[in-house]
């Protein structure tokens, strides 16, 4: 394949420019976390005058960050796992079989994305209360699973469709059950898609603050974002501590994303599909 000699350098220029724009605000966030509140407003763009750890100290004094952190981990990890299980089972069913109701089922799931769920907050709150789940992390786990399912089914169904059907035929001849085919044959090939679903739902659960605001009033059950919100006052906020908190709360996700992109998203090598 002959290529114009300018093509590759152009690729690098585009990638580099976009990457800088992508990263700059994050750089700004981390930098701001080392500044005291008033310096953020006076010199918002400059490097911190001196790297002060005080915002971090303030943060840890003001809020039980480790408790929030623990709750966030429990909620996000459990919700993501439930989403992966429920989502891949349902998507497999929708993509691999052609029962007459399958399109309707697919669409039924998609509808979940088309409605502002905030509308149903009062019935939802009463439901959670009746189930005894208010002030329990399970209320968050269930609602994140439920809100994550539509997107996951959309993505996974699409990718199940791209899998060559020949793959499973051999397995079926050997008498493998659907579950076995799904687990042993298809899922390992779908790592990029699974990784994406995992990451995207993890982020959603990790960053959401609306549901915990409503369902959780017990300080010991709060997740990071809602804990951070207590740093926003009506007219003022301790922006230093806030940025420190946001930086700290983004870190685990950045780490997770590195791992996930190594584990799941390296892409399929030529030998993977045979």
């Amino acid at each position, binding site marked *: 394949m002959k290529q114009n000699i300018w093509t590759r350098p152009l690729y690098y220029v585009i990638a580099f420019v976009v990457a800088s724009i992508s990263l700059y605000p994050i750089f700004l966030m981390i930098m701001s976390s080392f500044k005291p*509140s*008033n310096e953020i*407003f*006076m010199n918002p763009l400059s490097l911190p005058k001196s790297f002060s750890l005080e915002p971090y100290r303030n943060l840890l004094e003001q809020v039980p960050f480790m408790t929030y952190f*623990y*709750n966030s*981990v*429990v909620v996000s*990890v*459990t919700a993501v*796992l439930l989403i992966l299980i429920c989502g891949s089972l349902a998507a497999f069913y929708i993509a691999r079989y052609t029962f007459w109701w399958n399109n309707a089922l697919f669409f039924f799931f998609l509808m979940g994305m088309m409605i502002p769920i905030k509308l149903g*907050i*009062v019935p939802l*709150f*009463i439901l959670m*209360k009746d189930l005894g789940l*208010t*002030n*329990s*992390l399970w209320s968050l786990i269930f609602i994140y699973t439920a809100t994550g399912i539509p997107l996951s089914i959309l993505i996974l169904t699409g990718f199940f469709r791209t899998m060559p059907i020949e793959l499973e035929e051999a397995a079926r001849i050997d008498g493998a059950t659907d579950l076995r085919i799904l687990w*042993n044959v298809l*899922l*390992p090939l779908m*790592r990029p898609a699974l990784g994406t679903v995992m990451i995207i739902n993890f982020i959603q659960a990790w960053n959401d603050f*609306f549901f915990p*605001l*409503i369902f959780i*009033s*017990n300080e*010991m*059950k709060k997740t990071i974002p809602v804990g951070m*919100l*207590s*740093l*926003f*006052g*009506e*007219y*003022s*906020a301790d922006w230093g501590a806030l940025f420190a908190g946001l930086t700290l709360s983004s870190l685990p996700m950045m780490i997770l994303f590195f791992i996930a992109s190594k*584990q*799941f998203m390296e892409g399929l090598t030529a030998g*993977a599909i045979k």
Partner: protein
Amino acid sequence: MGKITKGWMIGFLAFILILTGCSSDAGSEEGGDSSNEGSGDTVTLQVGSWRTEDTAKYEKLFEAFNEKHPDIKLEFKPSKNTEYNTILNTELKSGEGPDILQLRPYAAGAELADAGYLEPIDDLNGLDTFPESSLMAAQGSDGTQYGVPLNMSTTQMFYNKKIFDELGLEEPQTYEEFIEINETLKKEGYTPLAMGTKEGWLMSLMHGIVGPSQYGANEFVEKIENGETNFVSDEFKASIEAMDELKAYFPDNYEGLGMEDIRTLFFTEKAAMFPLGSWEIEVLKEMNPDLQLDFFMMPSADGKEPTITTWVDGSYAINANSEHKEEAKKFLEWMTTEEFGQMFTEEFSMVSAVPGVQSDNQLVSDLAKAAEQNSTPYLILVHFAKGNPSTKATLETELQGMYLGEQTTEGVAEAVQKSAESYYEPFQK
């Protein structure tokens, strides 16, 4: 490859089981604690509020309360102010919510009261300390009392004393002098007014300061209350025109500036005047402890007394579904005492709703004095925070349109009048 993924998954699963196991243990312990009974006769009341920044201050107040009532424990449970109404309404509709709750003033509070979510407290001891103008902030639409007023907010022109002294400026006694001061400041290279129009509420708040000086303060308010005049009257239109004229003294790019921006302009001493609410005293002090802060009352354009604009910003009410109404009433009763008012003013640097309380903060004390002598109500909030969109929100949006050149001053007045007509009884006569 497949094996790696599976190993990963299984590890993941085990991890979760451990975590959720732990957390449910912790949950059951916690659950017992946060419900009402602790031990013996002690009762724990939850106090809901939108003032997340006040947690430590409330704890001090509660401690003082416990010296008198050791058997009533109070827990402060604030939530973010912008979501507070949504959270509280959801909880109240489901028969839940804190025992004692901070009530938004006027129409918003009356809405909760009219829905039957609040406990009437007409017979509460000590209510008579408050003037009727304060009490009305926490009443149902039938006049029943539901809340005890906590604090008076005022809105006025703050100014930087150092800049004024440097340029030999004095507090204005007439509206013309106020305009002259703006001109001088502008000539000397200062931004006269730290003001931005990106956030709507800044404009209604500034109108709360400038408006009364144009429409003739309390006289006009009375006429509005009696339905003798309305918002398309010349007086009100004059107040909108004044708002428009003052844009000459706003900072560059004012249409893109929000609260944090204009506050920064003011505490970094680039701007000389700052039309905002009394709560800023505390914030400004924290941002720049050296700032020489003072305020003046807005001089009248037609020779009347200068005024300061006041309203009750919050009250505390009792949830009708609370299991401990009697205990909650004891707290509300304490809120009517001078002891509480004193402590509140000192801790919060705000004007207490309890009359006659002195503050050791000179500025707060001066504000309180001014508020008692020359106050005018924050008209648009006190009577017109109703409707959807509310008349207050309409004023904000239309003023924003005016500053962007997309709405005329006439148009603003007409839109405000139209919005108010749909529910305001004096206008329907």
